[in-house]
């Protein structure tokens, strides 16, 4: 299994608006940045230059891991609008 390949296998219908919004001000006081490793879709990445967590909602698998590992309540977490987001194969 090539790790980079697995993320390319997922199919999405991407909504123009993100369904999860990160409050970077709240985020700033986080000590563990668990979202950057616990998210199974690698949506969160620490950006050393900007000194904050970058978030890419497009590859979200909608599992909810980030919401539960974030203990600062920095996420405004919603499911994508109907029909959008990840779509797993039917066969």
């Amino acid at each position: 299994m090539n790790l980079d390949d697995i993320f390319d296998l997922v199919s999405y219908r991407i909504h123009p608006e993100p369904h999860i919004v990160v409050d970077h001000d709240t985020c700033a006081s986080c000590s563990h940045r668990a979202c950057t490793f616990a998210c199974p879709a690698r949506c969160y990445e620490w950006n050393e230059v900007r000194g904050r967590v970058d978030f890419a909602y497009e590859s979200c698998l909608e599992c909810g891991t980030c919401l539960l590992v974030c203990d600062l309540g920095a996420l405004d977490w919603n499911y994508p609008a109907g029909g959008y987001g990840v779509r797993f194969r039917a066969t």
Partner: protein
Amino acid sequence: MAATEFDAVVVGAGPAGSIAALTLSQKGVKTLLLERGERPGAKNMFGGTLAWCPAPEELIPGFWEKAPWEREVVRRVLTVVAETSATSMVFRSDDVDRPFRGRVTLFRPAFDAWLAAQAQAAGVTVVCGCTVEGLVVCGGRVCGVRVGGSDGVVEAPLVVAGDGALSFLAQEAGLHAGVHAEQMAVGVRALYALEEDEIDGRFGLVRGQGATNEYLGGTEGVRGGGFVYTQTESLSVGLVLHLDSLKTRGFAPYDLLERFVGSVHVAPLLRGAQLVEYSAHLLPEAGLSMVPRLSTSGFLVAGDAGGLCYTNGLTQEGMNLAMTSGHLAGLVGAEALEVGDVSAARLAAYDRRLRESFVLRDLKTYDRAIKLLRRDRLFSDYPEVVGAIMEQLYASDGAPKRRVGSIARGALRDRIPIRETLADLIRIGRSYL
């Protein structure tokens, strides 16, 4: 959507929601089933097992013959994985004469679509691509849902929430204060395509038979386990990891999955198989302690949304609990609507019915086992102890052989204080015996 009046709105076309909707409709309730995916099953990644339960057969005669499940599980392997060894228990059932009371593997996107179609055929209005954003409350009771867009509202005297593990609607209804990392596990799965004959051969099966391989340990000390499930022409390979443990240990689920897939236990099973999909989902794992009250005025909660899912370390149950709870929600809901009383007191009959059924009784029976699985040592030290015992049992090094008890004491001594071993043995005994 305002043109049609519904008596009941069911949120989520998973096994809990579709069964609830089907039950309601069969009882003459005008029912709307809302699904946020573009089709039922589009948001479901699970390739796992469904254990037999009576509810679906009662609703759909011939269910077990007709439903699109994949393989009937006849072989189950539980493997304790240590650093340099693995010890397995293999169970195989060849009692083909018994009435089917076992479990089947299935592929949820296909199964969910089929089940929702059964609900639709029974008169349920199924609307996909519709995300429920919240509840509508009138005079202190739930009386509808808010749907996609700012002002979309569907009103109905009864709402059944089958909205999955995050359980936002039950939270909004005040039944719980939000789910926590300590209560949940994340499942990550890689789906591999492989020819039917190859699967049969590798797992020792004949046509239509299925196998489940489950693994304890081998997750870098993160509490959780691995699985390989056989579908007809595919294998579901994955890990289930306790969220709080994952967070504390600082591992990425896909890194652990990559190691698991490449391990000596799994890699040979996947030779030549083609990786076709990767997915992730949350699972409630805290047992009874996380099951809230599942009813209030105008509102019922079923399936994962009610925390009705568990593993006791030896087996996993979820879909059967979801379907049975959906069935009971439909029955209690239909009775309440018929007499025109959807008050909290009336709908509390649902909680009572669940407590009488195997759903909450099983969660109670294995409550200690579910709690036991929150002990880190079970996933780190003990697999090593088991491995060390087996290594020495089979070793031949010219030294005189020792009894198993003496080997075990030696293996334990280096890792775990004797007092804690005894406490754990008592815990294990009370969990299962």
